[in-house]
């Protein structure tokens, strides 16, 4: 979202100090919204690893919103067969452009991950480390944008 605006720039040193106001034409580099390649959450969104593909089959909010979200996953192997022996070893939300996670440790409850915290708007990742007796260990990353 870019707009050309006439802004007032300011040089002031105290409450009653004189201000130097000057017109300047600058671009308003506001909130960029969701990048085209980072969609909002929709059910059945997939993340593909080397041997396991994960998909979101239920979510507390679709699309996902700021603060705490619960997602439930289903898993398939490379041939597309359902995997029922997958354990979610770790889960975290991660905001690449800030280089920080979602601060709150998610709760792992079988195929459900609770308390995925998106503490600000923008593009996020949901990173899962998976273990399966039949498909081995794998990591998958969901790319999801939090618009609001």
């Amino acid at each position, binding site marked *: 979202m870019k*707009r050309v605006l006439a802004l007032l720039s300011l040089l002031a040193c105290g409450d009653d100090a004189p*201000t130097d106001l000057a017109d300047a034409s600058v671009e308003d580099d*506001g909130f*960029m919204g969701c990048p085209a390649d980072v969609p909002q959450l929709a059910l059945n969104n997939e993340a593909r690893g080397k041997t396991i593909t994960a998909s979101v089959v239920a979510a507390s909010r679709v699309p996902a919103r700021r603060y705490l979200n619960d997602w439930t996953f289903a898993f398939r192997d490379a041939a597309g067969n359902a995997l029922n022996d997958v354990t979610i070893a770790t889960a975290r939300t991660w*905001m690449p*452009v800030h280089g920080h996670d979602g601060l709150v440790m998610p709760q792992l409850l079988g195929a459900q991950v609770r308390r995925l915290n998106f503490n*600000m708007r923008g593009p996020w990742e949901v990173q899962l480390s998976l273990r399966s007796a039949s498909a081995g260990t794998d990591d998958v990353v969901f790319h999801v944008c939090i618009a609001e």
Partner: protein
Amino acid sequence: MLLAACADETPEVAAFDRTQLLDPTMCKSCHPQHYREWASSMHAYASDDPVFVAMNARGQRETNGALGDFCVRCHAPMALREGFTRDGLSIASAPTPLRGVTCFFCHEALATDATMNNHVTLAGDLVMRGGIQDPVPTSAHGAAYSTLHDRNAADSSRLCGSCHDVVTQGGVAVERTFQEYQESLFGKPGVGFDTCSGCHMIGKPGRAAIGGPERELHEHLWPGVDTAHTPWPDREAQHAAVACALGLNARIYGVSLSPLGELIIKVETAAGHNQPSGASHDRRMWLEVQALDANGQTLFASGMIGDGEREEKMAGEPGFDPQLALFRDWLYDANGNYVKMMWQAATSTSYPRGYTPLTLPPALLPNVAHTLDARYRLLEAARVDKVRIRLRMRAVGVDVLEDLVASGDLDRALIAAQPTFTLFGAAVEWSPRDGTMRMLEEEAVLCPEAYECLLGDAGSCP
């Protein structure tokens, strides 16, 4: 008639006159949810807040009136501009519709000449400005788009900054939230950018006015850390919203305990400004730390501060906590002596800025650590089985409130009325045996459902 006027079907309905537009309850007729949220907010409470009233009264007295309109300029801008008060001392007798930071003040804002101490210019045209680019025409008032009100536009943060940076008459920058934001990663143009309202006015679907189209709206709660100390509409909702905003934006980044007994706790904020921020000289945020042995016996404790208890104690005083990790600003006068009240602050040779800060910094660059370390010296480190840690926060230090009580400006009962928040993200139990950390479930918050349901947004409350 009034309902139809909300979305332009009845142009014959007379436009609100200036007196009507100044009154937030008139906004309620077409914007009931916006009104309800605002009415619970600290913007509505700004000049009814007994701490504000007490501080302003004392400040006027101690400066022989030199404080003038300094406080009321932001706490009740329309009462000041309409001539119902000059210094805030008579604010209780000002018409209710003009108290606090009103709908009219923000939505008539045309420009900000300086991002501090409220140098907002109002348009004076009775056109209500907002962040909607295609407002539905209404006979009630003119409606226009403004970047100052568009939470996706960088310009909008300047409107917030006009009151959320405060420089005293003595030249001390006692509140620097906007400055902190501008220096942070959040304030830099690019993909990681967001505005003040982007975080503090969360978006949600809804109708801007009765009868209007479904749109992406934003909350008018502005949760920070302050809450009402006295009975106030939807006080519980505001409390729950603050618990979310605080609790999900800070964490314990790491803990370590050396064999020699040095316990290091790394604390981090995800806020787009320092934490605490705003009146950081009044704010109190601290780490509560309890090291326990395998039998649950306490081996070490710091920051175990009860409700209504003063946070800092002097050496020799019962409860003195020499290792207390306390995050706040300290103010000084022209002679370099510590002072509590912002009008007493001044620059000096010892303290050129008039203050010293110890607050959690925001992210300045991507992937660069911005934690602060709290270090404790423990005896019997080898016996420590677990360490319970809670980051806790109050809007105003009990010592500040006690000082206002002592000067006769504040009711002592308000001290107990002030909540202490535990920040859920920074409430953990850590085990030195295996280095694992778990969250304290008893501190869990439900966000945003907890406050949305209290405001009637989400059906029954969970």
